[in-house]
């Protein structure tokens, strides 16, 4: 075995295979979708996007993803704080169950939401509120799927926070709220921010959890990923590619921003 892997030839061919795989699997498909959407010229690209159903779907997605992100930022910050700072019974159980949305298939998540608040659920019987096939259901699905991001972004930063800084502030006579806003919040902020942005980019990309419960009414509850799916199904790959490119560009910008943020945090 050893003599086999010792030779330079083997090492070169390994490198080549790994990089061909990397380029073929990741880079070429992404370049492919950009070229495909511009292949019939800029005007047809703009035509595809100016279809009211297309841009309404994109705007709706951005709006609902923003709401879901805000909700998750609030409850995520609270839960992250509680899990690091307080000791209480059941803490370990809660800490392990947080990752459930990452482990559960998104289609199953959508299905459960349908069962819980759908037309034949107890919730509907009791409150009579139409959630499913309306915007709140989409937000709920997005909140569920992106739930762990803010908590997991925040926890390591809070754990590392030097208690002595906080104590020094108290000793110097600073009030509780002032310490929070001047010492603790600045430490937490990068974690909250990068967690929130990951949640946002995941929310605008979400498909499985949303498709079952949004009702997919064009112009009303049709989100971008479901719109893209519909265009593929109705054999319009050009239209699908145009909206995809718009969505991808937004996501890539967010990702780039998170990279910058993380690097800034280390320096």
């Amino acid at each position, binding site marked *: 075995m050893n003599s086999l892997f010792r030779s330079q030839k083997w090492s070169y061919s390994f490198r080549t295979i790994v990089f061909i795989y990397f380029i073929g699997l990741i880079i070429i498909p992404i370049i492919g979708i950009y070229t495909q959407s511009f292949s019939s010229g800029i005007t047809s690209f703009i035509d595809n996007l100016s279809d009211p159903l297309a841009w309404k779907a994109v705007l709706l997605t951005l709006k609902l993803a923003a709401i879901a992100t805000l909700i998750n930022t609030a409850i995520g910050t609270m839960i992250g704080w509680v899990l690091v700072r307080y000791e209480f019974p059941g803490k370990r159980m809660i800490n392990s169950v947080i990752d459930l949305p990452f482990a559960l298939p998104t289609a199953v998540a959508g*299905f459960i939401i349908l069962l819980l608040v759908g037309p034949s659920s107890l919730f509907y019987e009791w409150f009579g509120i139409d959630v499913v096939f309306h915007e709140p259901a989409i937000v709920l699905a997005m909140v569920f799927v992106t739930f762990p991001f803010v908590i997991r972004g925040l926890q390591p930063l809070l754990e590392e926070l030097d208690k002595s800084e906080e104590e020094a502030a108290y000793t110097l006579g600073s009030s509780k709220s002032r310490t929070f806003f001047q010492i603790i919040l600045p430490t937490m902020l990068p974690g909250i921010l990068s967690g929130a942005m990951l949640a946002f980019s995941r929310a605008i990309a*979400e498909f499985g959890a949303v498709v079952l419960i949004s009702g997919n009414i064009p112009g009303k509850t049709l989100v971008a990923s479901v719109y893209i799916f519909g265009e593929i199904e109705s054999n319009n790959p050009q239209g699908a590619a145009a909206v995809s490119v718009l969505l991808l560009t937004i996501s890539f910008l967010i990702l780039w921003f998170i990279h910058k943020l993380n690097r800034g945090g280390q320096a």
Partner: protein
Amino acid sequence: MMMRRLWITLTYIVVSLLLLLPLYKIFTGAWADGLSGFMDALLRAQSLHALKMTGLIVIIVTVINTLFGVMLSIYLVRATWLSPLVKRLSNSIVDLPFAVSPVIGGLMIVLLLGPNTVLGTMLGNVGVSIVYALPGMVLATLFVTFPIMVREVMPVLQEIGDQQEQAASTLGAYSWYTFWKVTWPNIRFAVMYGVVLTVARSLGEFGAVLVVSGNIINKTQTATTLVYQDVENFNVVAANGIALVLAAFSIMLLLLMEWTKKRKEVH
């Protein structure tokens, strides 16, 4: 102290409503028609076939993604034959699939290798079909899971540094031997954690697979796309049966995640 009580209570409420209640629902809903209803749903020919397809995809994807992920991580951290610029650039590109909606990931493969494309026609002529067949579904899942392993292994490689490895090779150990005796013991729990995450993601992948597979019953249908189809056909009990099986796997994976995470942190 009042505040503390309040925060802990709120955390319990959010976690119960958002995570525990859905779990409870999925475990009880499958028995709505009794055990026989559940077994009927599970023993349908299409259910067995779908579960087999999912299992096959999970195994193939996990093996390939682990091998290439670990090798690419080693190259991106250690290789002296790559310029820092190429390393930095590749490092950012690795994350791109995280930002791509699964539907778009599927669309990319259809656009590159679908039956109407140059490559697709060429492959079709020699009798290889990618789209609407297993290879395309594997490719789609590989694309979606690509960053997972690299993101787990790279930080560990960076943290442990290359001193031990250099010492080993100075003492005459061959690279393969150095890898098994020096590098592997350090990264194995990170690799295991990556494997668990990859299994979870490929088990639950829905959007990309739905687009690429065409969701053909008894042929390219997977467990998650079967849940989708059952819901669309208003066959809720059947959908719940499959969803329960998937959820049970997710919980097992969640426990494994917890177990490996603890090992990973102990150095």
